[in-house]
């Protein structure tokens, strides 16, 4: 029996000890009418070899196309050491560290992670992760409502340059809690927040303003001005950031004169493979004054009976298993294993390494834009400084182009025409440090062919 160690002899001995005539008798409290007759739709068991063959066939079917898609999930080099360690049984198959003494490995690692993320974002404290970047933003909105006691509106201002999915998820998650979102448009030609629309809200009760930097288009927002405006208007500021970009760019803790209040984002660029969208992890950092409003696990350093340093879950009074209906969030399981990957990744790269990865990604994207915009029928949608993504406008329908590129084994970017119809045939592209110059040429040649309708 796969994964079941019991021998016939042992089953007999165990039933005798229980005093039950059969295994079936152990279910005698279940009404007979409810008992399952069959599970006809479940196939027969496969051996590991056969499943392996099946999964390899499925994987090969999808292949490994050359990827120029970002939009919240980025292909970066992951050191071989990262997952060799992450998948060690002691990390991989451990539970949440409720028994601190038997979980010091995980706990110390999480404390180290909190230290790194706090420094990277320029904030004071970090939790030990949330599910992903999108749901982290939802949690941040709820947290802002709790933290900003003076604001009664529960009204959150978001720019339309925020990743649209992040807004969708936030709406879905806060649905039952009477929050409202006010979406502000972007400046056409610039692809950044139309500041005048923000200023028009002056004097209204706003709980928080969300800023994504770089924004969904890859453009850099004037975060200092927005942060200062929000604070001047008694709103908290929630920053949504790509953590890798912080190797180059001013951390949210230093935006404006006071810095932001809550920082969230997706930790995927740090050691987490694209992996069809998950598991990734959301991060959240904040100021010390808000720590008791922060959702998710938090690890603290303390001492043991002998005065020796040790690590433990702390501030558990916020959490569902203690506070139940009054908890700051229902979050329970989070994304510990991915945080393990990210912590090892950050340790291997260091600030210098992340800086180099970010700069190289930015450079490769610049080169890509240069190559692609030389093709007739391709132009850049926005001016201004950007990180490693850009919006292009094509002469023809984007979905057709992407289909044609896919046939050439290229994933060409994200079609923005449904999300931002005003941009026309808009395509969001990305190149990271994993894309060589030759890769960029391959893409440019393919795109030129496609636009010229070559076969």
């Amino acid at each position, binding site marked *: 029996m796969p994964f079941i160690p019991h021998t016939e002899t042992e089953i007999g001995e165990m039933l005798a000890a229980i005093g039950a005539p059969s295994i079936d008798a*152990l279910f005698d409290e279940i009404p007979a009418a409810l*008992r399952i007759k069959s599970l006809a739709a479940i196939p027969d068991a496969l051996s590991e070899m056969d499943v392996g063959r099946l999964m390899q066939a499925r994987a090969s079917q999808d292949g490994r196309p050359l990827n120029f898609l970002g939009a919240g999930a980025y292909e970066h080099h992951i050191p071989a050491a990262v997952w060799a360690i992450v998948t060690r049984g*002691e990390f991989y198959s451990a539970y*949440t560290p409720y028994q601190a003494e038997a979980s010091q490995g995980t706990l110390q690692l999480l404390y180290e992670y909190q230290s790194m993320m706090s*420094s990277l974002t320029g904030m004071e404290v970090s939790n030990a992760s949330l599910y992903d970047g999108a749901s982290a933003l939802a949690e941040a909105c709820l947290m802002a409502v709790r933290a900003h006691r003076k604001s009664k509106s529960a009204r959150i201002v978001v720019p339309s340059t925020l990743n649209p999915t992040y807004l969708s998820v936030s709406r879905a998650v806060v649905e039952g809690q009477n929050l409202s979102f006010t979406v502000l448009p972007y400046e056409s030609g610039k692809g950044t927040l139309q500041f005048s629309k923000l200023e028009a809200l002056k004097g209204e009760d706003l709980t928080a303003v969300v800023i994504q930097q770089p924004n969904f288009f890859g453009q850099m927002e004037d975060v200092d001005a927005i942060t200062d405006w929000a604070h001047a208007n008694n709103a908290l500021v929630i920053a949504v950031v790509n953590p890798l970009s912080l190797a180059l760019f001013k951390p949210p803790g230093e935006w404006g004169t006071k810095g932001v209040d809550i920082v969230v984002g997706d930790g995927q660029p740090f050691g987490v493979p694209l992996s069809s969208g998950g598991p990734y992890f959301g991060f959240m950092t904040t100021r010390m004054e808000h720590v008791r409003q922060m959702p998710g696990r938090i690890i603290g350093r303390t001492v043991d009976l002998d005065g*020796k340093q040790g690590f433990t879950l702390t501030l558990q009074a916020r959490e569902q298993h203690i506070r139940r209906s009054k908890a700051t*969030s229902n979050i329970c399981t989070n994304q510990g294993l991915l945080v393990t990957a990210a912590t090892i990744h950050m340790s291997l790269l260091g600030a210098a390494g992340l*800086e180099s990865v970010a700069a190289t990604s930015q450079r490769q994207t610049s080169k890509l834009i240069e190559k692609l915009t030389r093709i007739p029928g391709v132009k850049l949608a926005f001016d201004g400084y950007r990180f490693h993504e850009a919006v292009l406008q094509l002469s023809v329908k984007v979905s057709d182009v992407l289909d044609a590129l896919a046939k050439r084994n290229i994933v060409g970017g994200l079609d923005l025409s449904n999300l931002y119809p005003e941009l026309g045939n808009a395509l969001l592209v990305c190149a990271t440090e994993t894309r060589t110059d030759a890769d960029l040429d391959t893409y440019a040649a393919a795109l030129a062919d496609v636009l010229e309708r070559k076969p």
Partner: protein
Amino acid sequence: MSEPLIFKHSRSGRSAVGQYPQAVSAEVPEKFRRRKRAALPEVSELQAVRHFTRLSQLNFSIDTHFYPLGSCTMKYNPRACNAFAMLPEFLGRHPLAPNSVSQGFLACLFELQEMLKEVTGMKGVSLTPMAGAQGEFAGVAMIRAYHKARNDLERTEIIVPDAAHGTNPATATMCGCTVVEIPSLPNGDIDIDALKGALGPKTAGIMLTNPSTLGVFERRIQEVAKLVHEAGGLLYYDGANLNAILGKVRPGDMGFDVIHMNLHKTFSTPHGGGGPGSGAVGVGQRLLPFLPIPTVGKDGDNYRWLDEKDVPQTIGRLSAFMGNAGVLLRAYVYMRMLGREGMHRVAEFSALNANYLLARLKKAGFDAAYPERRASHEFIITMKRQAKELGVNAMDFAKRLLDYGYHAPTTYFPLLVPECLLIEPTETEAKEELDGFVDALIAIQAEAEQDAAKVKGAPYTLPVRRLDDVRAAKQLDLTYGMRSTE
């Protein structure tokens, strides 16, 4: 054994330089430029590898220890699930890649949806929730959406038994509902009279797990379902305990309208030291229109993502992409390896192990919380007597077990049994492991009788002794450098 913080290995200028491109610097306008590098460690590759390898050795885990943590289903995580989910093509697939280069991946997800429908008796499944708590959220949000769609706007009360997981009431609140708690009877069943009293025109639904967190099966579940449905409410099944009944009875057949499944429990994806989990949801006919997106559909031979256009009444998206996709692949591999017969065996052998362990502990003189009931896949013993007579409480037993090489059971949950240990051995543990655990508890009992202080001082053989949690919460030290200590 202990290991310094990674920051102690850091020296300015040191780095694992082979890990990143060299000699590129970005021209960042002054207004965007970072002025001071983040205080990340500067270590060599060997130092990082050694540090984290040593840290890992400080953990207990399934791969090293018996881990009878009630309500958590710590069973063997087959290595094949990890190996096949981590094939390079799967790891490299962008979540937004066109369907045409995603058919292999989508096929796995579609078939997983179908298999989960079959084992739960549900009509539709969405795999997107990223953890049990998010699955719960999705479940209650769908119940809310259902009533709203019917314009039944007063239904905002969610009934929750007092034995429920903490996530249940927390979720109800998150969904903007009011929680109505009802008591359990001394035999562990729901107090049907209290339920009747709680039901009414404001009832949105009830959240149950069956078997309950008390480790016993709710025998009158059909009556409960009838009452709730008659009152206009829906039934939510908390799948945390699905392992107990997998292949034996289906939540859909019991009358539940929605269920979340913890794939990291019942379908053995790893817990990873606190996630990732996966909280797929299944629904009956009534809630089909509200399933969170995306799900995977099949048109002819083609798989494709279903979104708002296909499910216009959806409660929406719960993650940026497709939830914990890699976890879903692991669960898929697990289910294919178990197959039809294997599904039945999950409940059978988890029940056999739990009932055997209970029988042996009762015989050894320990007090079962529900001595007259069958154990499900888990059961509760209470140390109330030991706490009173010897001054040795459940936590002391738990900590001392660590010295004996066993992870502690869940302690002090469910809240309504005093000094309780909730014990779940799972089906993948061998009889001799259970016997060893019983022997350890017997030995600790003897120690408690002879030298209570010894037990209360445990553990002694772990990387640290008992930690000062009060200090941790009062003198917050949450990042390196926050306090001057060390």
